């Protein structure tokens, strides 16, 4: 397939800008203006439509294929949420309206969605307040850790370290570092959870907090979390819950009830909105009483007369984390999903997510080494160690699956398991789909015994076949106009 630049024909046009009726001369200082024309492709509207439709047909997505990408919760996004998000009263709102004089009267519905959603998330998680602003999970983490820092600053605490177990999400240490803390890592014990003895040694008066992903990236729930919370709280540390794996515990366990002070939710994972290449994320952050004063502004509050409004009166606030109020249309889709599922429905979501993961785990462990052989939550981690001895690595199995019309699971993460393959089927997949996946994995195992060399140029069925990943990383060139 040609790049759109290669379809360019000099002088061809698909769109004509309206003539400017304000003189721009003098308005934009010369130094900020382009010296040369921008080399955009010159194509017709039809060229553009065909180009992007053709690209979209090559998509590998949840709508077309099974997507067991561990840690990412790639579940099916029900289409009724799209219908709701398309309601004109939501989709055509101007985001400045609630900030204008009397403007809030015109957006009561949207503000009510944000207000109600906050209460729903509080009920689901046991937290006291939520900010809807963060635009993704890692953005939520940063928001949470900034509030943690504000808390310590306000109390005059001298804090330097954030503790992160090796089974946490990779973004956790990155977040802590960006927020200015030093990272202390704690290893997993033989059960795949944080080593308590090691943790005990590493907690000091300078511990600002602990970031826990539970269930962790091994799909294992840490049943000592209350003890851990006690240890961290004893030095006035803050317990951070990474909610990326919340899909496993809905209606079963509330982070707010077991000692967590702050958490984020990946709405796009647990509450089923399009993500990855399919749409923007949303990472609301919940806090308990301790951290309420530091929440970002604005918050949606309600006046005595029942009117919803944007409240900026949080003097201890860490400020703005995003423009406006977060990814509103994503929050709206997740809100619709929660209302549609209801409390019992959400419990069923987790029941089936866990059941499906255990089904795959039990069947695959005959042929693939299971890193921790115990009941898992929403995902489990295998190692391709047996296959690697035959010269077939986790990456080769991943590429093999693409040719079987299955999105590869997460490979080489978590780092604590060699040649790891992390599988999360989610609750939306049927037994038939999972059986097809298991068959494909068995086929990969058989082929690794018979023809290990046949893996090395897979996949063969895709528009882009096996890339040279080393060259791509060492000599990266993303500029069409620049020849290397």
């Amino acid at each position: 397939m040609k790049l759109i630049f290669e379809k360019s024909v000099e002088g061809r046009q698909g769109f004509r800008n309206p003539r400017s009726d304000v003189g721009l001369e003098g308005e934009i200082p010369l130094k900020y203006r382009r010296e040369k024309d921008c080399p955009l492709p010159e194509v017709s509207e039809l060229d553009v439509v065909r180009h992007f439709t053709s690209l979209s047909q090559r998509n590998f997505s949840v709508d077309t294929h099974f997507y067991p990408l561990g840690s990412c919760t790639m579940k099916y996004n029900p289409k009724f949420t799209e219908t709701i998000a398309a309601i004109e009263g939501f989709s055509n709102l101007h985001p400045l309206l609630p900030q204008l004089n009397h403007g809030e009267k015109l957006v009561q519905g949207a503000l009510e969605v944000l207000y109600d959603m906050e209460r729903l998330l509080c009920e689901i998680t046991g937290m006291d307040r939520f900010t809807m602003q963060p635009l993704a999970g890692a953005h939520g983490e940063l928001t949470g850790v900034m509030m943690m820092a504000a808390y310590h600053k306000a109390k005059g605490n001298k804090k330097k370290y954030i503790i992160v177990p090796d089974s946490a999400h990779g973004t956790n240490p990155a977040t802590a570092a960006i927020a200015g803390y030093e990272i202390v890592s704690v290893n997993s014990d033989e059960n795949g959870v944080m080593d308590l003895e090691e943790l005990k040694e590493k907690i000091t008066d300078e511990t600002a907090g602990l970031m826990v992903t539970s269930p962790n990236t091994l799909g294992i729930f840490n049943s000592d979390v209350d003890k851990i919370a006690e240890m961290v709280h004893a030095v006035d540390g803050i317990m951070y819950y990474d909610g990326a794996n919340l899909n496993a515990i809905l209606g079963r366990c509330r982070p707010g009830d077991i000692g967590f002070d702050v958490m984020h939710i990946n709405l796009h994972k647990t509450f089923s909105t399009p993500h990855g290449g399919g749409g923007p994320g949303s990472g609301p952050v919940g806090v308990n009483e301790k951290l309420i004063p530091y929440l970002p502004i604005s918050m949606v509050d309600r006046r005595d007369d029942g009117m919803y409004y944007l409240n900026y009166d949080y003097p201890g606030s860490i400020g703005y984390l995003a423009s406006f109020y977060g990814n509103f249309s994503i929050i709206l889709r997740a809100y619709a999903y929660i209302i549609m599922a209801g409390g019992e429905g959400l419990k069923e979501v987790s029941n089936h997510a866990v059941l499906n993961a255990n089904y795959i785990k039990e069947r695959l462990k005959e042929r693939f080494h299971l890193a921790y052989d115990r009941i898992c939550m929403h995902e489990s981690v295998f190692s391709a160690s047996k296959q690697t001895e035959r010269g077939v690595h986790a990456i080769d199995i991943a590429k093999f699956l693409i040719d079987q019309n299955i999105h590869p699971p997460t490979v080489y993460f978590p780092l604590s398991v060699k040649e790891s393959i992390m599988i999360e089927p989610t609750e939306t997949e049927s037994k038939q789909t999972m059986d097809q996946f298991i068959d494909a994995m068995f086929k990969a195992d058989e082929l690794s015994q018979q023809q290990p060399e046949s893996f090395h140029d897979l996949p063969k069925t895709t528009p882009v076949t096996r890339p040279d990943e080393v060259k791509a990383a060492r000599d990266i060139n993303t500029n069409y106009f620049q020849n290397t």
Partner: protein
Amino acid sequence: METVEHLLYTKEHEWINIEDGEATVGISDYAQESLGDITFIELPSVGDEVEQFGEFVSVESVKAASDVFSPMSGEVIAVNEDLNENPGMINKSPYEKGWIARIKLSDSEEQSNLMTADEYSKFLVSVG
């Protein structure tokens, strides 16, 4: 997995070659093999103070980004600039041309926290 007799090793798979209060540091054959093709290395600066088992380098491979810890404390006196252009040298020659930095050691006693080649080989067997 290859080890070299006269070097000392850490549990995090770094090696150190000590000569008269100075030392050369790199990562082991096992480390380069586990990382896979290395695509980028962030070297320390000459003059940096490093602590024993403290982070001092990060490497990226097609599989992962990973920290490299200094086997002993001291001051960085030289770095292998060639690795900026050719990080794959660590894969090809982890114990020689793929050396990472030279350190002026501040505490030779720290040697006792390291493993000999023989002990390291046994350690590798134990971690599978």
